[in-house]
């Protein structure tokens, strides 16, 4: 295929990705070093209140935004260097807290709180998703043919449901005196409030995410199980390998590329954890990196959006995922090179 034809095929897609993925990254980078604010002017205002004989008047100096001819607020953009990053990271407070081993203070700084949760969430759910997915795949692979279809159908439901709605569904089962909270209270004979403290919410989030993603891992592994070499399995049996040994030394190595694939996809998706925070309304206790940027972007009571701080936190989020991806990407790169040549 000539270069020109190739470009004609790939062009539109490339154009969109350049304009709407690459260019915003540049804007974010630029915004994170600049702040756009209304220009304030100092105005003397005389306020009078009716009083006896003569009204009492006081003059005071107030700051108010300057307006242009059309009545719009004049804004100016200034270079602030690392100021926004400092606002997000709060390095002074952070290092002081780290020196004193003061975990609570670290957890009170929103960025570090979000980073801690996002990383723990990503790394904890990964083995759970792979494990549960593998278990379901092996069990389904071993059952009778006729129930495989319905089981796959039911398994796909948690995967396909809108993430925010899925989180809400779990929340309705557990919130307040939800049906499952009631069941647990009856079982443990004590009062339980799952949405009153951070760690219980976090556990529910892990449970939700495994429920939501395990079907994906299951379907991928199940497809992989169909291509296990039956001859190898048979010779393993003849050599006296037990069921567990066959799993450990024949099936798992065969599935290894798929396990890596699922882990890579899960790494990208779990790092984006966000919908759980919305669905569980957990912002008072548990927040994630994506949610932090989202919160900066939402207008506050005065209607202003903290664009600069949002950009700084977005840049930091991006650096995080790149650091996490370097190892698996180098591996994928080597594999691709191997097959391409």
């Amino acid at each position: 295929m000539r270069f020109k034809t190739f470009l004609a095929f790939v062009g539109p897609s490339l154009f969109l990705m350049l304009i709407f993925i690459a260019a915003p990254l540049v804007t974010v980078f630029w915004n994170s070093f600049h702040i756009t604010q209304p220009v304030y002017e100092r105005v003397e205002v005389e306020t009078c209140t009716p009083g006896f004989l003569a009204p009492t008047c006081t003059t005071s100096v107030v700051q108010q935004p300057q307006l242009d001819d059309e009545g719009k607020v004049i804004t100016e953009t200034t270079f602030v260097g690392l100021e926004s990053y400092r606002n997000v990271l709060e390095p002074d407070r952070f290092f002081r807290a780290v020196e004193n081993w003061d975990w609570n203070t670290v957890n009170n700084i929103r960025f570090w709180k979000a980073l801690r949760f996002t990383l723990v969430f990503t790394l904890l759910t990964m083995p759970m998703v792979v494990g549960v997915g593998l278990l379901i795949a092996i069990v389904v692979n071993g059952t009778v043919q006729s129930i495989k279809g319905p089981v796959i159908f039911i398994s796909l439901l948690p995967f396909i449901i809108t993430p925010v709605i899925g989180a809400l569904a779990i929340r309705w089962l557990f919130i307040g005196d939800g049906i499952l909270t009631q069941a647990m209270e009856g079982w443990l004979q004590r009062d339980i409030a799952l949405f009153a403290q951070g760690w219980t919410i976090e556990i529910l989030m892990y449970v939700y995410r495994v429920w939501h993603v395990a079907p994906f891992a299951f379907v991928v592994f199940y497809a992989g199980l169909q291509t296990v070499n039956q001859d190898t399995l048979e010779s393993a049996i003849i050599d006296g390998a037990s069921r567990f040994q066959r799993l450990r030394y024949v099936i798992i190595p065969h599935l290894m590329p798929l396990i890596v694939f699922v882990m890579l996809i899960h790494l990208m998706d779990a790092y984006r954890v966000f919908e759980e925070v919305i669905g569980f309304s957990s912002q008072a206790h548990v927040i994630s990196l994506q949610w932090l940027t989202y919160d900066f972007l939402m207008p506050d009571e005065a209607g202003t959006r903290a664009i600069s701080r949002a950009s700084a936190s977005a840049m930091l989020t991006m650096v995080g995922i790149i650091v996490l991806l370097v190892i698996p990407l180098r591996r994928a790169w080597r594999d691709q090179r191997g097959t391409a040549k």
Partner: protein
Amino acid sequence: MSVPKSLRPPLRLKVLSNGFLTLWCIIAAFPIVWITIMSFKTPFDAFSANPLNVILGPDTLNKVDGLSLAEIAVGIALAWLLVLTARNWLPRQVVHYTPPGMIGFGWLVAALVFGIVTLILYMSVLPGVMGFVNPLLGPLGHDVLGLTTEHYQAVWVDRNFTRNFGNSMLVTAGVVAISLTIGTLAGYGLARSGTDLAFWLLIIALIFRALPHSVLVAGYLPVFIKSSEILRPIMGDAAPTLYGQPWAVIVVLVSINQPFTIWMLRSFFHNIPAELDEAARVDGCSHFQAFRRVIMPVMWPGVITAGLFSFLLAYNDFLVTSLLLDGQNMTMVPAIAGMFNRETTASDEVQAIAAAVSITAPLFVLVLVFQRQIVSGLTAGAVKG
């Protein structure tokens, strides 16, 4: 296929694995089934501590309405019939009646018609018919199960959820159509080009796929809000404010989805033998003619699968739509999440549940009809990435 005796699992393992499978199916389906049940009850029943009350709904039965045993039996039979139709009869009809090359559109129409027919059957035909039959059946015709659709009415009629639904459909349809058109071309180009450039593009696309969406939205938002000022020098007074425009969101979602789409479609095109279009080229076709005449007729399974995943992305999105659209153009998911920010009563809560079930129902039908395509899409990237 008969399994050799030595490979057959011992009884203990069989019981254990069947038990596990049952448990998994219950866990997978329970939250969805349960909120569906809750959505049909009065708040008192829906949040009752006794699970039996939630299922049977005595309060709902007293205050509003209920179903008789006969109605339940007919309803279940009808549901079974509909499931069978969707899985066997419908796909054949779609393939039969749509002209080649329009199959995606044919599926869209079929899904829409199927959804509407189901709604009509359950909302008006069934209650109408059973209203006549019930009194004739004696004890079978007595109402035993409390059930009310008042929350659905409240959501769809009073709260104007139809507008949110329309916005969602607009955004979703736009994303699927554009994303597939552009993605198919790019996927084909990438699959048939073995150059280093194609390889690097795929690696960059993979990195783009990993970017959290909030990073990108942080880039769009300030530009979109000020876009009419920025674009004025170029476009004059026609310069639009992109913030709050559904079509701007469509383009954004298409772009965000491109990396994933081209990876998936590339692997599909990889599986179509290159000899096919080479033969066409030998016969004198240009690359585009070969693509249109030889590849397009055989690419539909892959395109349908990629379309399904584009649909899911657009339909399920919360982050992009909630930040880039304003109140009037809000899609369904942010609208439901917004129902909680106010002071909520128990009745509001059940209405939110009804809205959540409404938004899940189309997805349920989607899995029902397209199970095979979804499974093949999930494994496509994995088998040969």
